């Protein structure tokens, strides 16, 4: 070294004392978050996984090792298979409806007509409403006797008798899908609108000069540009819908019978109403593996950059 300037310093792989101290500072910044994470997320999660191999009920709350008993019970239970399928139906339909409405709504607002900004702000409101409000409001709109939907359908003479939507299995499922789509459409729109605003207009104009129709512009210019946003939004929505419990529970409590009892509700009922914590944890583990499919796609997409 003998007094000469070490020109390799900036790119040298071994790091100096200053940089080391700086890195330690950076790590220390993350410690509070890591502590919260360990206590409130990772430990509860792992402990639930462990609990799924134990028998722990209201009568005998002290966990006793039970091997795969809880899982065997689930997989032998036809009702559980139905709950899983029901969850899938809810997630697929709610996600597709929300995505379609959100994308169309973003394209509409992107036209930039007068009042588009105000319309965007107002239509975002459903997204900030408390779940209990969303649930009550939709139950009221769909009310069998005094609901406004029945009133309008009656006026238009589309139905003869009022329909008690929440009393029929299909009606209740449709109701929770509709309520969830109402809640999330504007959020999805926000993501798409932000992406549309970065759309290179030269490409659209070039396509127009070639005589491309709206459909072709959408298919060959807009859609490829939206691809990444589409994947991220779809996966986030699917994960959110798999997690959904508040609106469904408040609206139908999983009923009628168990027509809207998705996995989240099954965990709640088994765990906090029947106090069978081992079995609830086992449902949770199966549920986790279901969520991990979209989650892995999400993580791969966002970590690719």
């Amino acid at each position: 070294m003998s007094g000469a300037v070490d020109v390799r310093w900036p790119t040298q792989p071994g790091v100096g004392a200053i940089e080391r101290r700086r890195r330690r500072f950076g790590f220390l910044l993350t410690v509070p978050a890591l502590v919260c994470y360990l206590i409130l997320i990772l430990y509860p999660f792992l402990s639930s996984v462990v609990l799924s191999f134990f028998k722990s009920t209201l009568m005998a709350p002290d966990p006793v090792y039970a091997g795969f008993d809880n899982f065997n019970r689930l997989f032998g239970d036809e009702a559980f298979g139905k709950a899983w399928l029901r969850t899938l139906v809810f997630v697929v339909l709610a996600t597709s409806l929300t995505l379609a409405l959100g994308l169309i709504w973003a394209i509409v607002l992107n036209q930039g007509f007068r009042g588009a900004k105000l319309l965007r702000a107002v239509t975002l409101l459903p997204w900030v409403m408390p779940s209990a409000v969303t649930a009550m409001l939709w139950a009221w709109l769909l009310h069998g006797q005094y609901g406004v939907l029945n009133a309008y359908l009656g006026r238009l003479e589309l139905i003869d008798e009022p329909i008690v939507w929440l009393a029929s299995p299909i009606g209740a499922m449709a109701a929770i899908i509709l309520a969830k789509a109402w809640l999330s459409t504007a959020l999805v729109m926000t993501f798409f609108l932000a992406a549309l605003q970065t759309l290179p207009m030269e490409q659209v104009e070039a396509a127009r000069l070639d005589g491309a129709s709206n459909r072709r512009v959408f298919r060959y210019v807009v859609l490829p540009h939206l691809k990444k946003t589409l994947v991220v939004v779809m996966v986030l929505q699917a994960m959110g819908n798999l997690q959904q419990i508040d609106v469904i529970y408040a609206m139908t409590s999983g009923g009628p019978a168990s027509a809207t009892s998705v996995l989240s509700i099954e965990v709640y009922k088994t765990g906090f109403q029947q106090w069978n914590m081992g079995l609830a944890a086992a449902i949770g583990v199966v549920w986790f593996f279901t969520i991990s499919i979209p989650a892995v796609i999400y993580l791969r997409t966002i970590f690719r950059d």
Partner: protein
Amino acid sequence: MLKLNKPGAQLIFVVVAVFIAAFLIFPLWWLVSTALKPEAEIFVKYPSFWPSAPTFRNFERAIGTSGLLTYLRNSMITAVGSALITTSVAGLAAYGFAKFRFKARQPLMLMLIAAQMFPFAVLLITIYPLLRHTGLLNSLTGLTISYIVFSLPSSIYILYTFFSQIPEELLEAARIDGASELKILRQVVLPLSLPGLVAVAVYSFMWAWNDLFYSLTIMSSKDMRTVGPGLMLEFFGEMQQDWGAAMAASFLASAPVVLTFAFLQRYFIQGLTAGAVKG
């Protein structure tokens, strides 16, 4: 982007736009309209669009006969508390991840963000006894802490993309001037990242305010309830048919989030979409 020069295309556009706008806006209007109607106008076969004799009776009943004000207060405490905690904790961590190349950086961050896939209901199975052992069950502190679960992972991710956009040269320049890391954080980074921090604070506030199920499980006594379970248990159920009061209470329960959101919308949308839309 769309070319609407043919009347047919214009018609389709307008029909689609009106349909979606109605789907999103009409329920909101119906909430307000029902809240303002006297009973005689609510319980009819063909209810009118406008309340013909608007009244505040429903609001009086909603406040007078229920614990709504207590619920609002409890929600305010837990939502503000958890927003403050989440924002500061997530902010520090995101800055650490975005600007310092320590060794375990990538796996730790992946681990934190992957937490979004752990089902909340499953976590509650263990958080519940945890709170019971520490005496925090049925307490505002316990609920506030539990709410960190909802928004910590995504807050870290949102702020990470935010901090990544701060130019490295700015930090370097401050370092050359002899500023300590803490001073840089306070005087350079904090002012620049304020919009992102506001976005995350609003986001966490909303998660907490809108929650139903954690509060329903953790808070067992009536005077500890937050608005979610409060509304559901007092205004909604087979026994309860006072839809006017229910909608008035819903209006009051939504007002704080709607107002917060209205004022901070610009920051919020910027911060939230930054991550997903880039590239």
